[in-house]
């Protein structure tokens, strides 16, 4: 049962991710991205990490992607407004992406993955254990990241305010 | 600006007080008002079973009266058609034949009498113009129809049935009062 679910979720995740890149309509891309997030949440649930799965849905699928969709709808992107890219830019983009692929392949080759025994009955994903890990082992990185977010927020507010005054 | 009527009221809308800014107390007050209305008497009239009573002098659908012996009063003089401001009334007159005395009171009668209910403004001038007490406006209403042609009412719809006389005594009193005033 578990491997079947895993394979089905993986295939749909990859197909949806491809859909994000391939589809011409930006709205379709965003919707495919949302589906991809759902597939990833499914993976989390398979790994018994329900908290992570639901937070992924709430934060990414439920809030950030709504904002993406909001902006794309507001901009009303279509073929007429699609920016024309020069051949040079296309070639440069292809080379960069190819190099990135090479790097990723190199990294994956060096990693030795622990074998998956199909039994994930660990309680690692439970809120209690997660909280313990976050607030004891990784307290400083966790708080630092929150300060980072605060800085980003303050910066955004400042930029917004400046435009109004002028 | 100079106030002409001296009835002008200056309403000042000052800053909202702290309690008003909190919204919630004001909302609670509003909820209190609406919940009071839950228990008030309902003003709805449940139409087909329950009908709103018309005023005594209501001017609705016309009727062409018959006299006590069941003879039509109308003599097709055309006064009503002349009086009608909306030109809703037309008629064709005919002479009474021998043996028809029980049908028509006068020697001349209207063989065709039509009122276009879409043109009629229910002013009641036809009733005032009539010298023969033949036409009256009643407290009935004109039915709704799908077709414009059906709003031209002929004698079949206007003349009262012998077995179903329509009471116009209230209107008669009012008309007489009006005539008295004119004298």
């Amino acid at each position, binding site marked *: 049962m578990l491997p079947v679910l895993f394979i089905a979720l993986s295939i749909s995740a990859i197909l949806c991710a491809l859909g994000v890149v391939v589809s011409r309509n930006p709205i379709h891309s965003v919707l495919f991205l949302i589906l991809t997030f759902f597939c990833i949440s499914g993976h989390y649930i398979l790994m018994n990490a329900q908290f992570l799965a639901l937070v992924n849905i709430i934060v990414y699928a439920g809030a950030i992607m709504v904002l993406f969709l909001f902006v794309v709808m507001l901009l009303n992107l279509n073929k007429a407004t699609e920016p024309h890219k020069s051949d040079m830019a296309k070639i440069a983009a292809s080379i960069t992406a190819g190099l990135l692929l090479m790097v990723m392949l190199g990294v994956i080759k060096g990693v030795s993955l622990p074998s998956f025994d199909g039994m994930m009955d660990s309680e690692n994903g439970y809120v209690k254990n997660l909280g313990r890990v976050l607030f004891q082992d990784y307290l400083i990185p966790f708080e630092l990241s929150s300060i980072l977010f605060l800085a980003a927020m303050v910066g955004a507010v400042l930029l917004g305010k400046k435009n109004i005054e002028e | 600006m100079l106030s002409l009527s001296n009835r002008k009221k200056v309403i000042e809308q000052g800053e909202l007080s702290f309690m008003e800014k909190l919204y919630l107390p004001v909302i609670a007050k509003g909820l209190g008002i*609406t919940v009071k209305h839950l228990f008030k008497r309902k003003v709805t009239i449940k139409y087909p079973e329950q009908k709103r009573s018309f005023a005594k002098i209501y001017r609705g659908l016309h009727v062409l009266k018959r006299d006590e012996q069941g003879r039509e009063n109308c003599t097709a003089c055309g006064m009503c058609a002349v009086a009608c401001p909306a030109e809703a009334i037309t008629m064709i007159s005919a002479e009474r034949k021998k043996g028809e005395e029980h049908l028509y009171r006068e020697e001349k009668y209207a063989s065709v009498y039509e009122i276009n209910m879409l043109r009629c403004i229910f002013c009641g001038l036809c009733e005032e113009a009539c010298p023969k007490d033949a036409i009256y406006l009643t407290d009935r209403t004109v039915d709704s129809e799908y077709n414009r042609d059906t709003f031209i009412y002929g004698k079949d719809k206007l003349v009262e049935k012998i077995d179903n006389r329509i009471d116009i005594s209230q209107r008669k009193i009012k008309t007489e009062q009006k005539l008295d005033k004119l004298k």
Partner: protein
Amino acid sequence: MDSFLIYKAILVLVIFVVSLVIAMYSTILERKFAAWIQDRVGPNRTGPGGVLQPLADGVKMFMKEDIIPAHAHKFLFKAGPMIAMTTALMASVVIPFGKTLLIGGKEYALQVSDLNIGILYVFAMVSIGVYGIMIGGWASNNKFSLLGALRASSQMISYELAMSLSLISVIMASGTLSMSEIAQQQSGWHWNVITQPLSFIIFLICAFAETNRTPFDLPECETELIGGYHTEYSSMGLGLYLFAEYVNMFISSAVMVTLFFGGYNIPYIEKLGLAHNLETILGVLFFFVKTGFFILFFMWVRWTIPRFRFDQLMNLGWKYMIPLALINILVTGGLILIFDYFK
């Protein structure tokens, strides 16, 4: 194992039907309630006192022609109402409707799934719910629908934050994310509304915003946007949208009762010494009575208060609700520390 699965399937079916029936009768109740507040009688022709009106409305919706506007995105246009309805119904999975039923010596919980993160699940479903509105509004290819969809998304995101922040204090006080445990902790008179009144008020206001009810029904406000996101919908597509709103209302009322008003617990019922199953059934009834009160409250507010302006809505959400919720969290945390210290 098999009997367990069968029981769960039956429970899912029962909750599905009950949610739909309650939503169905909420529509007639809404119309009746509006009428009474406005000194009218309300729909009273279908069946005695109008009780069959929802069925007549449903039949009417099904029989109407389903119109897809020109240049609309056909697939997404169809998918919008379905997503709205599905997400609305899915949240009821984690709501504990009662204690346990003893059938043949076994205990069965009156809750489809006791997730250890039940509250987060409800939030997830609420946050996905906006996609139904957004997709439908965009796919209609109509400026009013699009504006409604945009309003819906910005409003939902803004109030979702305040809503979850307001619940954090409740979670801190009860120390669990599971709905059934929170309900259990409130037995007797230990209702969370008594210890967390501010949290309840913020949650209530946000629930109004999340279900798109007046005074926050800007996504569908008739006077400005005709019908908002469902302007172009007809037939059952429109029906599903309107229906999803009532299902949402029922679910959010049920969540409020579970989190703040003691859920299925009847105070002092254990002193009566009733049979276990009878006690459970009475508890379920009590739960639905309280839920019904909140559904009525939703309607009562709708026919009392006019709509907010959009900037007022955003101000209220970001400048009042979120700071208040944060202060509430701070105060609750401080109080918990003080109580722990003196224990």
